[in-house]
C-alpha cells in the first residue's frame, strides 16, 4: 500500500510535467520551434519495445517466484534488468546526439521541457533499475532464501509504473 501511495504521488509529479509541456506545446505555433531538430522516432520506438519487453520479463519473474521457481526468477529478473539497462543506454546515446545538435536544458523552452519530462522518467528508470539489481544480487548470491514477497512485489509494481508511463510520454513528446 505504501508503494501504491508513492506511485499516486509520482503520477501527480509527472502530471505536473505533462501539464507544463502541454502549455508550451500548445502555446507554440510550430513544434519543434524553428531551428530545433526533430526528435528521433525510429530509435526510440525500438527503445519503447525494449522497455515493454523488460516489463514483461519482470512480470514473468514474479510468476516464477510465485511458483517457487528460483532459476526462473533469476533468469527473468536478469532479463528485466538487462532490458532496463539497454533502454537507459539508448537514451544516453540519443541525448548525446541532441546535445551535439545544441539542444540542452537551458538552450530553449523545447530543450527544457524535453529534458524535464524525459529526464525525470530516465531518473525513475535508473532508480528502479538499482532496486531490481539489488534484488537480483540477493537472489543470485543466495544470501536470502528468497527475497521478501513484499520487496519483490513492490519493485515489480514500481517497474510496471515506470514501464507503462513511457509509451504515454513517448507518444506525447516524440510522436505528437
Amino acid at each position: 500500500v505504501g508503494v501504491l501511495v508513492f506511485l499516486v504521488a509520482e503520477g501527480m509529479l509527472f502530471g505536473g510535467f505533462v501539464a507544463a509541456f502541454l502549455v508550451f506545446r500548445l502555446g507554440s505555433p510550430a513544434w519543434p520551434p524553428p531551428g530545433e531538430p526533430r526528435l528521433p522516432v525510429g530509435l526510440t520506438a525500438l527503445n519503447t519495445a525494449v522497455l515493454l519487453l523488460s516489463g514483461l520479463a519482470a512480470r514473468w519473474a514474479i510468476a516464477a517466484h510465485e511458483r517457487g521457481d528460483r532459476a526462473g526468477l533469476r533468469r527473468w529478473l536478469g532479463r528485466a534488468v538487462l532490458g532496463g539497462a539497454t533502454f537507459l543506454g539508448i537514451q544516453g546515446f540519443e541525448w548525446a546526439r541532441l546535445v551535439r545538435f545544441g539542444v540542452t536544458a537551458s538552450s530553449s523552452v523545447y530543450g527544457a521541457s524535453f529534458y524535464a519530462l524525459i529526464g525525470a522518467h530516465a531518473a525513475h528508470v535508473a532508480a528502479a533499475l538499482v532496486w531490481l539489481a539489488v534484488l537480483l544480487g540477493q537472489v543470485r548470491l543466495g544470501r536470502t532464501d528468497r527475497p521478501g514477497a513484499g520487496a519483490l512485489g513492490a519493485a515489480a509494481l514500481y517497474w510496471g509504473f515506470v514501464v507503462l508511463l513511457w509509451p504515454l510520454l513517448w507518444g506525447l513528446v516524440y510522436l505528437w
Partner: protein
Amino acid sequence: MGTRPGARFAVYEAGRGGLAAGLALLPAAADACAVCVEWGREWQGLNPGFYWSAVLLTVLPFVLVAAAGVWLHRLVSMADQPSASTRPPRADSRGLTGPAPDRPPGPTAVTDARRKSR
C-alpha cells in the same frame, strides 16, 4: 461610535459575496490570468494550453486514486479466493465429496450394512 462585531462580520460577508457574484457576472474579469505576462503574438495558443493542463491536473488525482483503489480491490479479492491446495473437495450432485465407486467402506458403510442385516 462603535458597530457590533456581528454586524461588521455580516457586512464583510455580504461584500465578499457581492465581489464573487460580480466576478461571475463579468467573465472578462474572471478570465484574468495571473501568469499571462506579455507573451507576444507568437504565443497565441497559450490559452488552450492552460485550459488542457488545468483539465489534466483536475482529473488526474481522481484517476490515480481510482486506479489505486481498483488495484487494491483486485489484490484483496485475489487474497480472499482459496488456493487449489487449500480448497475443500467439491461435492457432487448427491452431496458426496469423493468418487463413490472407489470409496473404501468407512464407518458409514459399516452402519449401513448392519442396518440391512436387521
